[in-house]
């Protein structure tokens, strides 16, 4: 009995906090918009019965998504922004993780702390603070003008560049920590063995260090890519009118258009797109666990 409860707990959790909400969203996505509260129909009622209720559901909203090119463009643009951000985060994060793993043992907890420290402040405030840095009269432009690198202030805020900066900044720890974990486990004698067998320092890095930190690179990349794909806060605070991301579209459908059924359809498609990288991520984690076992 106790064993049953232990197993039941995660399933109940999953049912209550994922499957039921998902079913509700799915139902809304199959409904029609209505000037009512809640703003969609049909509503289930016991008088009419389940058959009549189900017969009113249709895939109209999903068909609508394919007729307006805003949606697929937003999906593609989100995928592009998430992919570019992931690569940028990797290029910034890998050297940091590498430096941490090679730092003296006594320093490592401090360095780790410094990586995690930003999480102690609200994500929203930290992203908002970037507006002050990136705006026309912001600190970045002031410093660049003062040092004479530029004569005209750069327009960074409200462009995709600001979005990339925001994403790299926000998700950097998710990239650093798994790569650091992989590099920390790396046996130093493997590098020595590679050098002993004729590798230069640089080729030992490409032939041994990079392949052996690959699970960390993959894990970190997914941890950045997956949340960035549906990101809403960063593009709306730092991005401009040209920044097209599905998270923003979703928000507008829900709160500006009050078209819950279409918004739900957008959300369902986003979820389906996300399942692919999530499954790949799980596979990577599993393979790593097996290799270590």
């Amino acid at each position, binding site marked *: 009995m106790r064993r049953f409860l232990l197993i039941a707990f995660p399933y109940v959790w999953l049912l209550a906090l994922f499957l039921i909400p998902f079913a509700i969203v799915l139902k809304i996505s199959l409904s029609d918009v209505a000037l009512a509260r809640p703003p969609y129909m049909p509503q289930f009622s016991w008088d009419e019965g389940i058959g009549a209720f189900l017969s009113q559901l249709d895939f109209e909203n999903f068909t609508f998504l394919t007729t307006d090119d805003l949606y697929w463009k937003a999906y593609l643009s989100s995928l592009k922004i998430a992919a570019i951000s992931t690569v940028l985060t990797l290029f910034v994060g890998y050297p940091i993780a590498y430096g941490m793993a090679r730092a003296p043992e006594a320093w490592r907890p401090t360095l780790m702390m410094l990586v995690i420290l930003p999480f102690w402040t609200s994500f929203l405030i930290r992203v908002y603070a970037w507006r002050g840095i990136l705006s026309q009269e912001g600190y970045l432009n002031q410093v660049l003008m003062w040092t004479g690198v530029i004569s005209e202030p750069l327009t960074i805020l409200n462009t995709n560049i600001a979005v990339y900066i925001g994403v790299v900044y926000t998700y950097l720890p998710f990239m650093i920590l798994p790569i650091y974990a992989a590099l920390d486990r790396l*046996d130093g*004698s*493997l590098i*020595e*063995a*590679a*050098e*002993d*067998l*004729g*590798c*230069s320092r640089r*080729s030992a890095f490409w*032939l*041994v260090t990079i*392949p*052996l930190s*690959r699970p960390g690179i993959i894990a970190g990349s997914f941890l950045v890519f997956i949340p960035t794909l549906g990101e809403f806060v960063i593009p709306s605070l730092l991005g401009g009118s040209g920044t097209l991301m599905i998270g923003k579209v979703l928000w507008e459908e829900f709160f500006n258009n009050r078209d819950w059924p279409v918004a739900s359809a957008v959300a369902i498609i986003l979820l389906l797109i996300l399942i692919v990288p999530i499954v790949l991520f799980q596979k990577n984690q599993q393979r790593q666990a097996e*290799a270590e076992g």
Partner: protein
Amino acid sequence: MSQTVFAPWTDPAAKPLIRFKNVTKRFGTFTAIEELTLDIYEREFFALLGPSGCGKTTMMRMLAGFEDPTEGSIELAGEDIVKVPPNQRAVNMMFQSYALFPHLTVRDNIAFGLKRERKPRDEVDARVEEMLRLVQLQPFASRKPHQISGGQRQRVALARSLAKAPKLLLLDEPLGALDKKLREETQFELMDIQEKTGTTFVIVTHDQEEAMTVASRIAVMKDGALMQVATPSQIYENPNSRYVAGFIGDVTILEGKATKLGDAYEVRWAEGQPPLRAKSTLDLADGAECQLAIRPEKVEIHGEKPSDDNVLQGKVIDIGYLGNISTYHVELANGQIIRAQNFNTERDTRRAFTWDDNVWVNWTENCAVLLDH
């Protein structure tokens, strides 16, 4: 065909392959190696033997190029290699942890060094096959290191380090991770491979039996200095110090004062015990402090008092039965314990001696080794 004994170290004309000249290595304030000079010859199987922290691993890492000597020079085939980085030395190392690349198959591990030389592909493949054959791992060529046993991993590491046909192969505790039986088999395999390939091997070990089995010469180290460099039998039968005598094999040490008596010395070592005679080439002043080292297998044990020299009377207090031999601990009247070993050459015979038996032990004057420090 005349059999010539392999002993280039006795030939003054022979050129050593490796030459340590006054090498000192310090880590901060700690001196790992002090003023060490050592020659190792081609085709030797040379063992660096000592307890952990004696500097043997530092010596090996200096040969591989992972550490630079603080002072002195190291020559390989007549050239100073101190400034040569590890990837440009004709030296390969087999690591204690094996350091096999976990992401590569057995075949790719062995091919790793060859590929770095940018040799043609078929040449690399042929060499890898040859190495796989040498260590009998052909059926496992496509497996990853975590899919094979510890003994097989050890052989992959050996094949990988031999693949580039180095002038010198370094082996850092190569058999440390194997169980006893496998270790003994592998020791003979190592000797076989060393002979077949004609490579000079330098092995670091703390296992004296291993060093005795495989090595042509052994350097016994202590605190960053060489205590004795000699063949296994010289080290065992003619240790030059109490430390070496005690480090290799079992030994009973008696302390006393020497008096010259012809070509031997008489050692007075305890009140009420007869003096002991030992032949020695040492030059000791009369009354000088000395030690007598006696190996248990050289000590005979008797029920009746024999009429020879070096006879001591005592009582059996302990018997260690090891199957092939038995070790008797004989306590003398003054409390000193002498160990004596007997071979159990027959089956099922009742032991001649048992606990509390009154016995006599003796050895010939050739058998005890006189030491002055």
